[in-house]
């Protein structure tokens, strides 16, 4: 078996897909530490707001985002809040199922870098409301090779249904 650092180009997509599916699994199973460990310490995590019906935010420094963190500490804050037991919106914790589809290369892979795009749906069950809701959109992942493992250096989430019933948290997208 070849190591990730000298992959056959055909295998890039398969190995990246495995990581994206694993991220979805970790979120659904609330394996928060495993989820955080998929990100580089200096990762960018971004879900822009829409500026109008047709125009998505382009610049997180001058336009509003649902989430914008330029390092993993921001994601650690999010996890700390939902596990604190002190957030009404997170207790009881909503249950999620993330589905990814159409995972494809956005650019030709280069040594140690992989740019992926995918379509996503997240079904969320809110026990407080006894109701299920879906959020959906597309997502971009930029992966980098660190110690023979792919890690997420950048993730940009596009949320298509941006009229939010009650709330939305990082585990819903």
């Amino acid at each position, binding site marked *: 078996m070849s190591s990730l650092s000298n992959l056959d180009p055909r295998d890039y997509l398969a190995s990246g897909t495995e990581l994206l599916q694993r991220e979805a699994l970790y979120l659904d199973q609330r394996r928060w530490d495993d989820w955080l460990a998929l990100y580089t310490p200096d990762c960018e995590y971004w879900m*822009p707001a829409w*500026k109008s*019906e047709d125009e998505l935010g382009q610049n997180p420094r001058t336009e509003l985002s649902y989430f914008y963190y330029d390092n993993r500490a921001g994601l650690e804050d999010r996890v700390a*809040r939902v596990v604190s037991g002190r957030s*009404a919106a997170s207790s009881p914790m909503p249950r999620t199922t993330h589905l990814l589809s159409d995972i494809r290369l956005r650019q030709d892979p280069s040594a140690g870098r992989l740019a992926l795009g995918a379509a996503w749906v997240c079904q969320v069950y809110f026990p407080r409301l006894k109701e299920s809701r879906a959020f959906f959109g597309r997502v971009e992942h930029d992966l980098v090779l660190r110690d023979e493992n792919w890690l997420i250096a950048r993730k940009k989430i596009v949320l298509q249904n*941006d009229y*939010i*019933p*009650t709330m939305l948290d990082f585990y819903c997208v």
Partner: protein
Amino acid sequence: MRDLASLIDDRPLDGVFLVHRDAFADRDLFEQEQKFVFEATWNFLALESQLSKPCDFVTTHIGRVPVLLTRDRQGKLCGFLNLCRHKGALLCAGEQGHARHFTCPYHGWTYEASGKNADIKDRQAGAYTAGFDGEGHDLIPLAKLGSYKGLIFGSLSPDVPELEDYLGDIRFFLDLAMEQGPHGMEFIPGRMAYSYRGNWKLQLDNNLDPYHLTTTHLSFIGVQTRRRQGSGYVEARGYDWAKRAKTKAGTFTFRHGHAVYWADQPEPEKRPIFPKLAEVESRVGFDRAHWMLKNRNLQVFPNLQIAETAALMLRTYRPLDVDLTEMKSYCLAPIGESEEARAWRLRQYEDFFNPSGMATPDDTVTYEDCQTGFRAPGHSWLQGYQRGMGGERVGADDLARSLGIHPTASAVGSFEAGLETGLHGPYREWRRLMEAGAQGRKAYP
């Protein structure tokens, strides 16, 4: 008809202020609120900077009524019912944009940005009578339209006070939000729209309720504590809640249902305007510039809230049903500020106020818990309106006099006092308007 006096138990001499839960849950009352409150008074609609050029437009609502705001070709601000005269269809479905004409998608009637009817499709072939010609086919204008410091308000009723008189001395606090930039204020691009399954007055209450902060937002406070200890996203420059408990705070209520809660801000250096404070002081004076740094939660009755707490936020809500409310929240910022200041402001705002943030969702979910509670029979009176009444006085206190404002009541206490006195203003006005409407009297005699 419901006896409205039985919904607000307001006995200042006995130190009692109770609100009946039916005010939040009774469907008949909801219908009356639409008519006697939202359709009878000034409502906040938009910011002038959203329509800065001729032929810009914004759509919004007053209560149930769709509203179209435009600038005509000369740049004059206009407000109309966003409804075609022909069959009543919604005329403009877009939220915001630029258009010289509005064409109804149903039969093609077309209107200019000034509201004037520009075309009735196939009019000559239509065999219309002289009666039709006499009906008038222009868009129906709002009864009143006005703006104050860039905030646009409209009324469906002509029988309202002039806007400046309506706003009264809440203008002092509006100025503190709207005069932070030398070129005016704008919404940072990015729409945040959400809804909750609860009555609109749950949002009214929450904004003037400092008492909830140290329970509802314990998880957010926990994140700030982690950050103070060096972990987490310190770039968000969150405020240190441990420093707030003993800070001085107070409320003022004003005529026409407006109110403010204010509290000292122990970390003014975390405000994004702090590096520009000298410029602000030179424009508005030292005292007002420093009031801009304090925590302030404003209620402009009935549908506008401006809060400068974790960040400067403008929020408006629209009742969709007795137990369903639409929210729109905006990050308000000085026009032309630096990218550095804007990023600073955005991170503070997103951290707390987003429907995907770490604080607002804990509020919104709790509103839904309240609405669930309101369905339970037998538990009638809500006791959430009385903290601080022991420290309240009618009219202006020394602080109000020093600011040159004339509140109907003033209260002071610490942050920990969790003052609920600010809510008396909006609820007294709600009852006054509801009673006037129910008795067929003018809202503003």
